[in-house]
């Protein structure tokens, strides 16, 4: 399910006094099995961008091609496209509606016309995938905690067995534990199912450790598209885009400015610690 965007512009409320260009000249492609992070300040156009990928929004100019299908072409089957490209919306818990968790998770596969016996299987699998116990199935989704509701909503998209999974700020508004839980589940999913995962976030901490490739978007334009390491090497310019670098990288930057022999970028705390220890020992030997 490769996805390709070519010269994509998107304008909200075109032709009215409230017109607003949300995306400008986007060129981007996603390959099978990639784990890509999309990062940018609030209002930079991340949500708009991901809604292009399953045909919920269509480009004002340019083309979006999903698995060879152009979303703006006449008579294109958007419904089948949406089953292949699963999109978990920002604050996805607000989409829950059914009486039980199981019924809500089953909504997607039911719309796909999956046979009942298989639906039950898929529901169980999806709930386990997001780390929820199966006892929860018969409960009302509205009596769960915020983090659990979010995970039920993610399971609702997973149950459709998408080939591409897009998550729009899946950790926004969660406590650190809920955040780590969801992120590690997503990493697991990518590893187990081998699907393409596109993770949208405004937090560097979230994506730094997870993704292979990082797309930075600012004011509706792509400013970087590279590995996290390469992107974080641009620490100071990231700040002008309203983004920080992960704390681990930040600390190394400060030490380097003081003349320590440390690398410029560290993605995890562990990596930073080792680098600092090494540099410390080096200084001691020199002294």
């Amino acid at each position, binding site marked *: 399910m490769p996805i390709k965007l070519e010269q994509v512009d998107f304008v909200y409320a075109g032709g009215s006094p409230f017109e607003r260009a949300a995306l400008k000249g986007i060129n981007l492609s996603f390959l099978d099995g990639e784990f890509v992070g999309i990062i940018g300040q609030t209002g930079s156009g991340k949500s708009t961008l991901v809604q292009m990928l399953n045909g919920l929004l269509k480009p004002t100019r340019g083309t979006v091609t999903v698995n060879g299908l152009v979303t703006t072409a006449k008579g294109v089957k958007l419904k089948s496209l949406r089953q292949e490209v699963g999109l978990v919306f920002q604050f996805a818990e*607000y*989409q829950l509606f059914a009486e039980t968790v199981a019924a809500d998770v089953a*909504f997607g596969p039911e719309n796909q016309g999956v046979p009942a016996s298989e639906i039950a299987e898929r529901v169980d699998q999806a709930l386990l995938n997001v780390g929820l116990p199966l006892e929860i199935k018969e409960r009302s989704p509205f009596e769960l905690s915020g983090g659990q509701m979010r995970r039920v909503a993610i399971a609702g998209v997973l149950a459709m067995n998408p080939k591409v999974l897009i998550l729009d700020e899946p950790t926004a508004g969660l406590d650190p534990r809920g955040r780590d839980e969801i992120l590690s589940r997503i990493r697991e999913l990518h590893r187990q199912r081998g699907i393409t995962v596109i993770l949208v976030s405004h937090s560097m901490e979230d994506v730094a450790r997870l993704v292979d490739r990082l797309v930075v978007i600012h004011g509706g334009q792509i400013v970087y598209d590279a590995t996290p390491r390469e992107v974080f090497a641009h620490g100071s310019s990231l700040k002008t885009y309203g983004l920080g670098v992960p704390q681990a990288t930040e600390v190394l930057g400060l030490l380097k400015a003081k003349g320590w022999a440390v690398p410029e970028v560290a993605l995890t705390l562990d990596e930073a610690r080792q680098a600092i220890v090494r540099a410390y020992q080096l200084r001691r030997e020199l002294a």
Partner: protein
Amino acid sequence: MSMMQQITLGQYLPGKSVVHRLDPRTKLLMAFGFIMVLFIITAGWVEYGILGLAALLIIYTAKLPLGMVLRGLRPILIILSLTIVLHIFSTRTGTLLFRLWFLEVYSGGVNQGFLLAARLVLLVLSTSVLTLTTSPIALTDAIEFVLKPFKRIGLPAHELAMMMTIALRFIPTLIEEAERIMKAQLARGADFESGGLIKRAKSLLPLLVPLFISAFRRADELAMAMEARCYRGGDGRTKFKVLRYTKLDFYAWTCFVAVSALAFYVSYAL
């Protein structure tokens, strides 16, 4: 195409024109007065021409895009065509224009139909101009002021105005929310369009349930926030933005009286 774009009626278009700067009470009472004049004067092309010209002049002064103002007429298109058609076929005055099988069309009917349609258009235009140039908050302030005299007979003027403010404030929020939930369910393969009546009504559940839940949650949060800031109704409450008439309002009223007088003169004295 998003739902937001289709709703122009009741929308506010911020600006700095003379019309925008008028006191909201002036605008509210004028819109009301305009409608009164519209109904009191005898229906005629010269009379409606004068009022229509005045309306166009106001739209021009307010720097409103004409297309947008006219788009506000879209919701009444059906009523308009119905009015015209019904009158054309039911009024039998004037000369016989032509006969269509068993239907006879008289000149009086055509005239009458279009006159009534013109009246409806003017009516909607005046309210559109009011809401397009007056922020919802200013408008409710004006409504509260106008309703105040009726407080003595037990009308809760402040509460009504507050309810309107809140309702107006949340309409765009709820529309946005509905759009978002709709998209989220579409992403899960929901189908809001095909199937029979019952199937389609049922397909709305995944949209309506979350929408109601979120509306109740918002209401709850708002009530809590108001209480936390010691809101206790209108008694003894002062205003941050005190309404004040200016010279502009005086000029506006002068114009209004002049135009109305002209319309009445044409209507009754000629």
